[in-house]
């Protein structure tokens, strides 16, 4: 009885999903879907009281999972749709991907995004690992505040403060030295490092805190210098955390919109900035195509992270 109700709910969810491809029939399909979900709820409300809580947990969770996945599935499916409008399924095509790869601005933006992500992830991993080690080993007072606040603040605050800092403080100083300075790739890289350090440091520190202190003491007792202890003992042990942190910093950088928006200036475009411009000007399935490819990229990163450091995925929380 209860599992039948869940199947009815699932059918309702699928009908709602289908309504987004149904063109003029969308209201009818949506109403049928909603009706089926209501029927499922009514079915579930009957029956034994004992299994009631479990049923409602499943009922609500199914809806929540549907809420999570339906929007993205729609974006992906419409990227193969032979129509300019994301409103009705017309036919299969890969033309939008073709247009994407012929779009020079988009390719340039992708190249910028990759360059920024590689540079900022490399430096953020180096500095973040140091910060994680320092916080674990030396318990400094100021560093944790500087490391964690950028992670916890609304991004816009970091974005505007860097904007004012670069244009109002760094530029005049550079001008005094006879150097030109403007917003661009370099400022974006610096901004990305600033917010990525915290994530790397959190992951590295989490890895360190799970470790037995006595191995480091043993290395010291056996006459290893601090550098030798680090190179031969500490580093191999934290390496999975460092790699996970690097992947995290890379993903954060590729995905960042808000902070890049304020620190890129007018000339520099990254993929998220390009997507933003596109959806503000004209929505075409080209956006769906680039979105789908971006999803595949991050999915790949997650698979790699899962292989290298299975516990790192949890550190994201």
């Amino acid at each position, binding site marked *: 009885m209860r599992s039948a109700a869940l199947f009815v709910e699932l059918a309702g969810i699928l009908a709602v999903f289908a309504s987004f491809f149904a063109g003029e029939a969308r209201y009818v399909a949506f109403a049928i879907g909603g009706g089926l979900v209501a029927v499922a709820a009514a079915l579930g409300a009957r029956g034994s009281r004992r299994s009631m809580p479990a049923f409602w947990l499943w009922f609500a969770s199914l809806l929540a999972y549907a809420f999570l996945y339906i929007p993205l599935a729609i974006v992906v499916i419409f990227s193969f749709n032979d129509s300019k409008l994301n409103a009705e399924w017309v036919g299969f095509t890969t033309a939008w991907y073709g247009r994407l790869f012929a779009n020079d601005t988009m390719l340039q933006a992708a190249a910028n995004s990759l360059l920024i992500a590689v540079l900022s992830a490399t430096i953020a991993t180096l500095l973040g690992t140091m910060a994680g080690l320092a916080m674990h080993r030396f318990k400094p007072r100021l560093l944790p505040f500087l490391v964690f606040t950028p992670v916890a603040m609304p991004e816009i605050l970091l974005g505007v403060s860097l904007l004012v800092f670069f244009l109002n403080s760094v530029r005049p100083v550079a001008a005094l030295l006879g150097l030109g300075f403007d917003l661009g790739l370099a400022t974006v890289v610096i901004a990305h490092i*600033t917010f990525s350090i915290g994530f790397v440091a959190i992951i590295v520190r989490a890895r360190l805190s799970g470790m037995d202190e006595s191995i480091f003491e043993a290395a010291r007792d056996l006459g290893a210098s601090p550098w030798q202890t680090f190179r031969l003992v500490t580093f191999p042990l934290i390496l999975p955390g460092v790699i996970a942190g690097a992947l995290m910093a890379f993903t954060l950088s590729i995905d960042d919109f808000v902070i890049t928006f304020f620190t890129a200036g007018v000339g520099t475009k990254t993929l998220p900035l390009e997507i933003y411009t596109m959806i503000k000007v004209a929505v075409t399935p080209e956006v769906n195509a680039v979105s789908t490819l971006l999803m595949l990229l991050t999915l790949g990163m997650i698979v790699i992270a899962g292989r290298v450091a299975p516990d790192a995925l949890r550190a994201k929380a």
Partner: protein
Amino acid sequence: MATPRSDHRTKWLVTGPPLVFLLAFFLAPALIIVAASFRVPGEFGGLAPLFPAHPGEEGGVTAENYRVFFGDSVYFEIFLKSFAVAALTTLACLAMAYPVALLIARSPKRHRDLMVLLCVLPFASNFLVRVYAWMIMLGPFGLLFSQTAVLLAMVYVHLPFMILPLYTNLEKHDPALLDAAQDLGANGWQRFWRVTFPLSLPGVFAGSALVFIPVLGMFAIPEILGGIGDWLVGNMIKEAFLGVRDWPFGSMLSIMLTLCVLAIAAGAAWLAGRLGASETARA
């Protein structure tokens, strides 16, 4: 052997680089924003000179921005509206996340990691892609550029920040507590409200802070999915910096937002601390 002196050197070698970087690119910019909020806007954007070259020219230091802010209820109303949107988003996230987190926490151990991963996976997609998804979903239904659209996307974008801390908390609960409650005659509803929910409050507060704070500063969702009337604090800040280019006013708004965020974070920490204290007292 590591002498105290070389230990000291190691400390600065390891602590120094990230410290210097963050002092330069996080703390200094933050302090500059504080200073900028007391300046006068330049004629073509930016800041007017601190020491005007000619008498009668704009410049110097002023508290005018704060006077304008506290003198006009418009700004207060936008802050209030942002708080309302953040509160609604947080409540909606809580209502959606709780059953999922509870279901995962009560599932067999071997399924849990996969179920958590399934919650997080959609958020590996780009933020703008997730907002865009709602654009193409709501457009044909005629719901675009509305408060509903803004709220739906806000919930969608922030949901995992609620699910994860809740799950982390619920996973730790001892099932024996529920058995004990049952033996004492509590029904399913009572077991939830009298045992599970009170114990999960630290997770609820952690998740709520993680949702509430970013929503307060959000500008992209109201800008893309909302109408002009749906603007929040974030939109005002963005407009001040990039639209009308009144940096001092934008800086003042940023300071106000920062103060709100700090108050909320402190409140959440205080609540969590109080709960922690009462838990220990009870144990």
